[in-house]
């Protein structure tokens, strides 16, 4: 999954760094806050571990290799932010010392394997494990599924980064300048080995490590699982779940970003979105564009980025990406606002209910 230099355009690499650098900044801040001095040797040893795990290339029938990363299980043991640093360092070694993965594409590789993988893996793990005790068998299963989904999410991200290259970057005569394969080719190429071999290895490894720690020294899991009981016996009453609007908005945006390139795979145009004049009237048994459709089509034409580009039609690719970014931000902000309003309304209702219960508690 290590993308070497030369497969991706420098602008794609720049986007990778643009995501990676702030994430590193947050990660180092978060990590140094958690355990003061212990984190440096711990991160070092775990990134050495991740490096070794990546070295274990599992042979795949079609002649290539796939490998586990260990990002999910590091996230489970040390927290996702620590995993970001540990895996980033392992990737740096591979890029600098062994030419595995490029230097310009390092940022993109970090986004895939050191950011997407641990966070997706950890998220799935949290979701499945819930508030079960640290020694619960469900955590082992959760770790396996987390690792499996995490590495496949990372592989999908890599496939998307490869696949958008020929459409975005080609010379005047259509020669692709970077990776020549389209999404319809890159996604299966990455998905098949990772859904089968690499995903399985990551799953087995994650489960084995969590099971080992449960058996050998469960206290190691405590710092990364605040508030989770050790065994069934000391389970605390469950606190009410709160959904912060900012978190919901962010989750939604991330989901959309992950899913959106799927649309580029589908052949043909989007159903029911064509210009009325492009409708195949004969096929539909019509003689003319329906009057209502004709009348109201183009009713609103004051869009900022019509046709997902600049009005002048220049820089089509740039315009498309810019449209996507603006769209993401607008939708995210909208959801955030809706959430804030809802919380204000619900919060008032909760407060009322609490006030009703107050006298009883005092009595």
């Amino acid at each position, binding site marked *: 999954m290590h993308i070497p230099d030369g497969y991706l355009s420098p602008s794609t690499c720049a986007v990778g760094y643009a995501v990676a650098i702030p994430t590193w900044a947050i990660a180092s801040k978060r990590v140094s806050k958690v355990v003061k001095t212990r984190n440096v*040797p711990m991160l*070092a040893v775990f990134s050495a571990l991740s490096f070794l795990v990546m070295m274990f290339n599992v042979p795949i029938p079609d002649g290539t290799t796939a490998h586990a990363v260990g990002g999910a299980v590091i996230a489970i043991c040390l927290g996702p932010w620590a995993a970001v640093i540990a895996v980033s360092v392992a990737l740096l070694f591979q890029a600098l010392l062994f030419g595995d993965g490029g230097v310009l594409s390092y940022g993109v590789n970090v986004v895939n394997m050191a950011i997407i993988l641990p966070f997706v893996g950890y998220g799935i793990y949290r979701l499945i494990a819930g508030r079960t005790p640290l020694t619960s068998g469900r955590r082992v299963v959760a770790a396996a599924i987390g690792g499996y989904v995490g590495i496949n999410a990372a592989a999908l991200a890599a496939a998307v980064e490869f696949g958008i290259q020929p459409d975005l970057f080609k010379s005047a005569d259509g020669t692709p300048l970077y990776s020549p394969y389209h999404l319809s080719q890159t996604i299966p190429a990455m998905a098949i080995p990772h859904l089968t071999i690499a995903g399985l290895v990551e799953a087995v490894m994650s489960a084995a490590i969590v099971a080992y720690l449960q058996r050998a*020294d469960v206290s190691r899991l405590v710092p990364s699982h605040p508030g989770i009981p050790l065994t069934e016996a000391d389970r605390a009453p469950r606190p009410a779940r709160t959904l912060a609007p900012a978190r919901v908005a962010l989750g939604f945006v991330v989901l959309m970003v992950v899913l959106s390139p799927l649309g580029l795979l589908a052949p043909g145009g989007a159903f029911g979105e064509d210009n009325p004049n492009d409708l195949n009237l004969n096929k539909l048994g019509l003689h003319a564009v329906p009057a209502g459709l004709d009348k109201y089509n183009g009713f609103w034409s004051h869009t900022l980025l019509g046709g997902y580009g600049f009005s002048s039609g220049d820089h089509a690719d740039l315009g498309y990406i810019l449209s996507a970014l603006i769209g993401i931000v607008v939708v995210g902000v909208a959801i955030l606002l809706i959430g804030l309003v809802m919380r204000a309304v619900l919060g008032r209702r909760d407060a009322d209910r609490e006030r009703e219960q107050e006298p009883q508690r005092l009595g």
Partner: protein
Amino acid sequence: MTTQESLISHDHAGPPTLSAGDHAPLPADAPPGAIFVARGLRYSYLDRFAALDGVDLDVMPGEMVALLGANGSGKSTLLKVLDGLVFPSEGTLHAFGHLVTEGNLEDEQYVEAFRSRVGFVFQNSDTQVFSPTVREEVAFGCLQLGLSAEETRQRVDDVLGMLGIADLADRAPFQLSGGQKKKVAIASVLVMNPEVLLFDEPTAALDPRSQQWLAELIVELNAAGKTIVYATHDLDVLEQIATRCVVFSEDHRILASGPPGAILDDTALLLSANLIHEHSHVHLREGQRVEHSHAHQRGGHHH
């Protein structure tokens, strides 16, 4: 071996004083001037496996104390407690007349004074030699304690020269042999010029020549005024260089403490501490006579 005066001599030009938030008076029976005064230390790993079960110990300046005990008897843990790396669940430790607690070691001045006075050579050199090069490894302690880069560089060169490993300065630790790594680990502690040196199993996994070299170095450091405390279960080499032996039982208590001659004559004691096996009597008795005379010679120096 050339002993560099600047490194070995007591040149603590007004070290920062050890005093911080947590206080407890020195125990009444503490001998005056003691470096370490430990009373009733208890410690267990993971709250399950006991390592220390009520340990009392005093260490006086200039002593060479050998902590003897079978594997897992708690001597390594005691060294870690003495170095303020782990903290007892019960009992108190005073170092240089001041209480050692986790809270006190968070105080900048206190920790700087404590760390510059007490050095620890770990059993596993691989854990102690963690820097990319030998030079950086040896410089680490001085830099953490705020010495200037200039002075650090000078000290590193001196200590590497003293231990005869100047040619390794720019090598990476994984290129070194076990004996060389041990020398680097010792250099990285000596460079800070501590008053007290703690060694955990110093001769374990060393070849005979390195063992002999290390024994001589310990004697030399002690002659230069360093207080030495080390853990070992090797009676053959290191009891030559102890002024006092402290014997740990397998249930994590101190069985006996005394001059090496007396301890080594007490076969029943050594047997119960699992330091010797019944069948090793004959062999040991031969060795003992040698140890005995050594211990007496040394005893004359210090008492």
